[in-house]
């Protein structure tokens, strides 16, 4: 049960100051556009918050290219828009935090091989719901999400979109409950990001003798030979003795996954 409201609220309120700037090469007007500042929620997705960004910059771009799909780039790497914003930040920026986060806006030369196209709200919603279902399969064999009505699914999405904590958690808490005959999930839904991809593994939240597993146990199971790795999530490094059942309940992103970035 995710009943530590203080932690849940802190996680929910996480925000990042972003400074968007248009790629100077794409500016077709005489005047350089001003950078666009925005405070974005860590838990949301870029396509949901960048409408104003697009509106701001599109008129500085060659009219033919104005209708093209906008894409973002940080430090030479295209931003994977289907990751939550906080995950992108932890992954790309890591511990070398320099705020504001400077992101470059592009309209041209969409890097098809590196990121997906069609970052519309509907696609993001579909991806979000797919993650929730996958997480529920791991936690409850899918029973909770399939017993929910369409309006509950919708409420999760709307709650996330409009930054409404209570609306979101009214439904999400059902997904965060342990199944009726146990007090922990079946498996912990998580993604461990490293290099250019992520690892997923079936990890149970308790050991054979009933002890709750900690973050340290999880790392040991995935990297048996590397004990000293640092994990970053939500912009902080959680202690190794944190139980992963608790982490899954409280530190998951709205898509119900724990997104852990391996810090080198």
């Amino acid at each position, binding site marked *: 049960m995710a009943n530590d409201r203080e932690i849940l609220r802190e996680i929910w309120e996480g925000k990042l100051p972003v400074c968007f700037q248009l790629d100077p090469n794409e500016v077709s007007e005489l005047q350089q556009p001003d950078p666009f500042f925005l405070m974005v*929620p860590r838990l*949301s997705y870029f396509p949901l918050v960048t409408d104003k960004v697009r509106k701001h910059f599109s008129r500085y771009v060659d009219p033919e290219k104005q209708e093209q799909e906008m894409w973002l780039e940080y430090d030479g790497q295209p931003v994977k828009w289907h990751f939550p914003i906080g995950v992108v930040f932890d992954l790309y920026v890591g511990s070398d935090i320099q705020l504001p986060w400077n992101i470059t806006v592009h309209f041209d030369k969409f890097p098809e091989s590196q990121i997906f196209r069609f970052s519309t709200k509907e696609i993001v919603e579909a991806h979000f719901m797919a993650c929730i279902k996958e997480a529920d399969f791991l936690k409850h064999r899918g029973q909770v999400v399939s017993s929910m009505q369409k309006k509950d699914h919708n409420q999760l999405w709307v709650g996330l979109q409009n930054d409404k904590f209570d609306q979101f958690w009214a439904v999400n808490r059902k997904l965060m409950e342990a199944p009726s005959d146990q007090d922990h999930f079946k498996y912990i839904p998580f993604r461990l990001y490293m290099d250019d991809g992520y690892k997923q593994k079936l990890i149970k939240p308790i050991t054979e003798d009933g002890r709750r597993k900690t973050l340290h146990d999880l790392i040991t199971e995935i990297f048996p030979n590397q004990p000293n790795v640092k994990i970053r999530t939500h912009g902080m490094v959680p202690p190794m003795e944190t139980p992963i059942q608790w982490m899954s309940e409280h530190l998951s992103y709205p898509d119900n996954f724990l997104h852990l970035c391996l810090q080198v």
Partner: protein
Amino acid sequence: MPSSLLFSINNEGRVHTLSTSGSLWRELPYVGQAFKKLSAIPHFLWALGGDHQVYMYVHGLDIPIRVCEESYENERWIPIEGFTSRLLPTDRYRYSSADGTVDRSTDKIRLPSMAWQWEGDWQLELTLMGQPLDHNGWTYAVDFPSQYYPKKQWSSCVRRRLWVRSRRYSAMNSWCAIAPLHKDATTEPFIDISVGGNNVIGADPGTMLVWAVTSHNRVMFRTGVSCKSPEGAKWISVLVPPGCEINQISVGATGLVWASLLDGRALVRIGVTRDALSGESWVEIRGPLDKSRIVHVSVGTCAVWAVTQDKQVWFRKGVKGEGAGISEELAAGSGWVEMVGRMSMVSVSENDQVWGVGADDRVVYFRAGVTLADLTGKRWRALHAPQQVSRASSNASLNRDKFHRSCNSLNQRPHSISEITTGISEWEEQSHSAPTAPTSLPVGETTGKHFETQLKNPKAWSPVRSVGSVVGTEAHPETDDSIWQADDLGNSSIFYTEDEELCWAELETSWGWVEGGACLLDPSQLPNWFIESNTLHQVELEQPWRLQILDSLKKRLLSMELYAHYPTAVDTTSWMQASEARVCLNIANSIVFVECILQLEWVHTNGVVTVLNPDGAATMHQFSVTDITCVQCCSELGCPRLAVHTPHLPPYCIKFQFSSDSQLEEWQTHLIFVCGQVHSIAGKPPEQSLWAVTTLGDIFVSDTLTVESSQLQDSVYVQEIDLAGKEVPVSIPVHSGCVPGTELLLTGCVADDVDRIGINLDLHITYKLRHKAYSELENTALHFNPRFIDDIIVRNSMIEGKWGEEERDGGLPIKSGQEFSLRILCAADEFVIDINGKKYCTYKYRLSSHSVISVLIWGKIRPFKFLIKNPFPIINPCDLFWRQLGGHLRRIESCASGVTWGIGYDHTGWVYNYGWGGSFIGSLDSYNVNPMTDSRDYRLYENQRWNPVSGYTSTGILTSVS
């Protein structure tokens, strides 16, 4: 698996049962006896009553228990007389058993107890091995032991015929008292009872073993207990080793008996086999730890569980019931294993499933995970099932909040309630055939084929305590089955008055005893009894890792402060809600609902409610959220409605009708949310609050603290009214009356050409009935009337339309064309009036100054300011904002210290726990919200009238009302 039953006793001694195919605890009908302990095997329940006597309950058998008594009437042929009942001295009895050894005089064959009834009289058996006999039923033989034939042979010297009479156990589904050991039941009361042995290897099917312990430290074994004789025959004493004081006893399905001793050890009965059902000897077993004493032990088939004095649970390993009769080791086991859990008692069923009652929380627990391979199981699971309770039960009034009536439709009345009445009436019809005490059974007369037994006093009942007597009424098997059927829905149109009703409730009953002996649960298919309450993890607020995480998260926030000027991506501070609804704006005083679009727009700190016409083009009405003083549900049947009160803005009350309850709740939530934001209401209402309930039972609270604090100046409450620019006559409401200590100050300017001006302190109008019509009569406490022409100030009062005596002295200090100030001070018994700072006059009260409700200023005067200073807060009731709290009550009472009590419609008392939110506000802003149920009866009477043509119909003659 067919359904079986779990039994338990609650803290009031009432026995309840839960079926594996059901989900509700049902109480066995209470017939005056409370029970302390019980022991069960399928269909047979043995219990220790509150009077320390043993009672038995047979239930759920489809086929009645019937025993056929036989008696052979023997006759011998002698010359001259023929067959006669005079037999040789060496012959068998005249009425005998089949082999002649037992005397079976029909007049001596009696019912074993009150619980049996004869089914008919003695009758002749008219067939012999399928062949019909003559109508006298005689069969013939050479001699008594020989073969009998239907036809008389020339060699037949004897004949016999078989009389049969069957008796039926008639105390099915009711409690039956078992004979005490002595005539006076209190001489040696029982302290424990146990039934088991329904699975003794090789024994006759239907064998049961009953063991008991008496207060004189004797262990008793009941002989002859079987399916055909459920009460058994008699008690025999079983010797125990010297020095052993038996405390409690338990019999398992294979007949294995364990007893716990007062000194904490246990005794095991060795040698229980089909030939020696009561075993042979005892073996002593030590308790698990030297210092903890066994207080309770329960035997299954291959499992024995015990509870020690410290509420610790232990499992005895090495017990194998099947071999226990022959092997001492298999009976006694080999060691104790400690189990997790604190229980006050445990009960093991035939298939070794274990039940227990929690030592601290008195909840029934089930040991999950018990299998053949792992007899100790995995963990205890709490059993929560709702319960059928009688209103009369004291538990019921403790737990009103969990009650809910199941009467959404007539069909859902629990079956058992209505049927008890029918059972009682049928029983009374049968009572004439009830057997009386055996001693009064008269000798039957042989008249032809039948015996007729004349019963003396057929309606007399022996007292409850006599042997075999049936406690309470016998429920008719067809009608009372419902107790044993799960969730049966039956048609019933019989209603009980409120006192007798049984209701369904999800009570947290305290259980004292659980008995799993009759419950054959398949552990892999658990019934839906286990509603796991959300076990809150021990809140790990103090764990270092959590604190560290919290700290890191908070640090993030600090680093954002530099960028606070960045606009947020998601704008959460402005939003709009709109939906279609119907509105009644009370135009021209007509209650008509028209279609509209209701729109609520919230911008940062304030909101606007707009009512648009259906195509959104024109605005019908608009007001700000600050104008709302109350949002109240005023639904009627089928019309979900919301009333929004804006007392200062006509129409003062706007009603909205929605298409569904959920839409109503949605809007209620929105409006309450914005009102709360605007009035900065959050959290618990202050102690000195006003509480109100609406006719629909909703609870509202209001307080005057903000108003008071804004009015308070130097310990008086000041209300300042700016009258500049107002046209006379001006009427100023005086909300708090003119209690002694009140000051009224008026500054203004008199016109040049003034004739007379007046300041009236008015009271309520009284209405008097005069000649069948009401007339309005005015009351004025003080009529202050400066007349400039006459140079006087007339002071007077009007009492019910009539003027009193004028007071005219003092002159006229006010000059026309000049400014003036007037001060009226309300002293203890008079008005003290100052003009321009100087005392002018006094005026004794003729009407109570407390009741002044308004001040009227008239005449050619330009008033500037009116000030009211009152020792009490000046509250305009229309200004109060009413905030809704979750709940449903009929009446509510509060006091100055904030303690608030209420009574619901179902007569339950409630006390306010200083929470807020609740009901539809839900998770948005709730605190300390607990569930509450209230029920209100709506009774619908269907009337019918009898008429000679069609009997009872609902269409009647014109004068009847249906």
